[in-house]
């Protein structure tokens, strides 16, 4: 199978830029990153079809190996639709996030912060247990210990 190097290089650049943007905290950049990733992958799938050829429409006199492989194109079509849906959803979510917090950034998780600030000492489990060392009680039911009163 012959490989189109230009496609592969472009795929690599698109994926690298996409992954870099996804690691950002700003949500619009994350969205751009996801779109780049989607396009990069589509290009990769196209490359996986092998050499170029005629459009895969049936012609009675064409040889079987003169067509290009139609399957990757069908796969890309599906992938494009899915990326489109996810992008639309993300846009709505980013807009909602912006309306709620008026910032285009992801905040830290409150529970994570709570756990990270917790000390090893746990009151419920680690506090010393008060022991009753006497069986005698005074009139109000308080324990009477030696040397008290």
């Amino acid at each position, binding site marked *: 199978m012959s490989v189109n190097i230009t496609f592969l290089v472009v795929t690599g650049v698109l*994926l690298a830029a996409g992954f870099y943007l996804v690691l950002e905290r700003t949500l619009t950049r994350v969205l751009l990153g996801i779109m780049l*990733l989607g396009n990069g992958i589509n290009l990769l*799938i196209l490359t996986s079809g092998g050499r170029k050829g005629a459009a895969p429409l049936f012609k009675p006199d064409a040889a079987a190996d003169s067509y290009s492989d139609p399957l*990757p194109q069908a796969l890309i079509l599906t992938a494009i639709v899915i990326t489109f849906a996810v992008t639309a*959803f993300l846009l709505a979510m980013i807009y909602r*996030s912006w309306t709620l917090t008026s910032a285009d950034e992801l*905040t830290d*998780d409150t529970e994570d912060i709570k756990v990270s600030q*917790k000390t090893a000492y746990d009151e419920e489990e680690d506090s010393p247990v008060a022991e009753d060392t006497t069986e005698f009680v005074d009139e109000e039911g308080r324990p009477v210990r030696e040397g008290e009163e």
Partner: protein
Amino acid sequence: MNFLDLAPLAVVLPIFGAGAAFLARRQVRLQRLITIGILCLTLVLEAGMLAAVWGGESYAIHIGGWESPFGIALMVDGFSAFMLLVSTVVSLAVLLFATSQGLADGDEPGPVSIFHPAYLILLAGVSNAFLAADLFNLYVGFEILLTASYVLLTLGGTAERIRAGTTYVVVSVVSSVIFLMAIAMTYAATGTVNMADLAVKLPELGQGPQLILHVLLLIAFGIKAAVFPLSLWLPDSYPTAPAPVTAVFAGLLTKVGVYAIVRTETLLFPGGSVNAGLLVVAALTMVIGILGALAQTDFKRMLSFTLTSHIGYLIFGVAVGGPLAIAATIYYVGHHIIVQTSLFMVAGLIERRAGSSNVTRLGSLAKLSPALALLFFIPAINLGGIPPFSGFLGKFGLLHAAAQDADPLTWVVIGAGLLTSLLTLMAIIRVWARVFWRRAADAEVPNQDLVAEATQVADETLAGGAQNPRLGLKLAKQLEADSLPWGMRYATGSLVLAGIALTVFAGPIFEFCERVAAELIAREPYISSILPF
């Protein structure tokens, strides 16, 4: 015409149901009826499918009559039929739970009416992923269930859920991208995406390309299954969703990833070339997950961590390989789906009963809500692996299989498994001691309503005295019935019963799992039932 030719209905019914439910979004009652009816139909269909392949048959359906490897094929074998049935049982229970909660709260029209259609789409995606016999259809199944899960996770659109949803969506999209990358490379290398065809053609590739494809697929599925270095998104995103949504996610979504991993390891790459790596990852998943669970004070977050931790057992079973280990893995998947979902439903009940799922605010619930205590206790000790429950049987099977001619690394992982089991028990018992046993007044942040109710019940018990010792219990039951609608309690109860049934019928079920495992390892039935030659 074979009965199994109806298998595509397991995907088609929920999708059409979702459309109908969406059209009926203004009539809440009709929408509910459609959703429950569709799920019941699917359940009957899948029970029939499981019965048809119970003896160990496998049956391929070629959609549109296109022969494999060119057309899309669906595969019904023991493994997929078992997963389908368990997932539908669980989702039906959760749906009844959610419906009853909605009934009690009075469904408001508006964005909430999207719940039922999205739920059915989620189920269609899960079924499609289980039935898929080619990688791309598996990808489509994943995408269907993920897109529905994005909607369900951010239901209502509060700030907290949007924050959690962002993490979830971005991580899921990245895992899908990696999966697609793997598919493209597989197609470039072999010229097919049909799994049976791949099983034949992949061994012809060199070691290098095989390893790359193998690891890429494992990473993509590992993110979905929440395997350790790739699991950190899960406890951040699951707990904020509504209780029924978390329950169904916890049961199904990670297990779809596990299902895909089992298929990859048994069908596509049977050599076990990365088993040592999988063993290490399994041990880390178990131990780190459960240590995270111990640090949490929120019950739902703690459950999310035990969820990721116990995925480690499943990966462990896959890594050990061999008929017994795979059989135990399949049994454990069934157990884990049911138990983890019932625990999340109990978390929802606790949250509703006491106003919070944070254990620092809870107490006295054993007195105040005896039925709830029972509903918590059974799945909890089941998760902890106490005999005779299914958790014990599954873990015993796994460790027993692993211990047969084990190398030092496997012994270390067996140790990690035992340690995790012990720590799970500890995490569960800490919740039990705090939420159910201690007095509400002793909580770190006492909840005044709970304290008042506890005092009321104690007073009533005292007033009843020796003549009428059940007076306090009666009041507790009354209070429980007031705050927890019967539908929610019975839905949870029926899933707890399903967990017990998995224990009671462990004999025949485990024999079935052994048949399935033998079939998975032989590969021949799968390949020859799809490929015509």
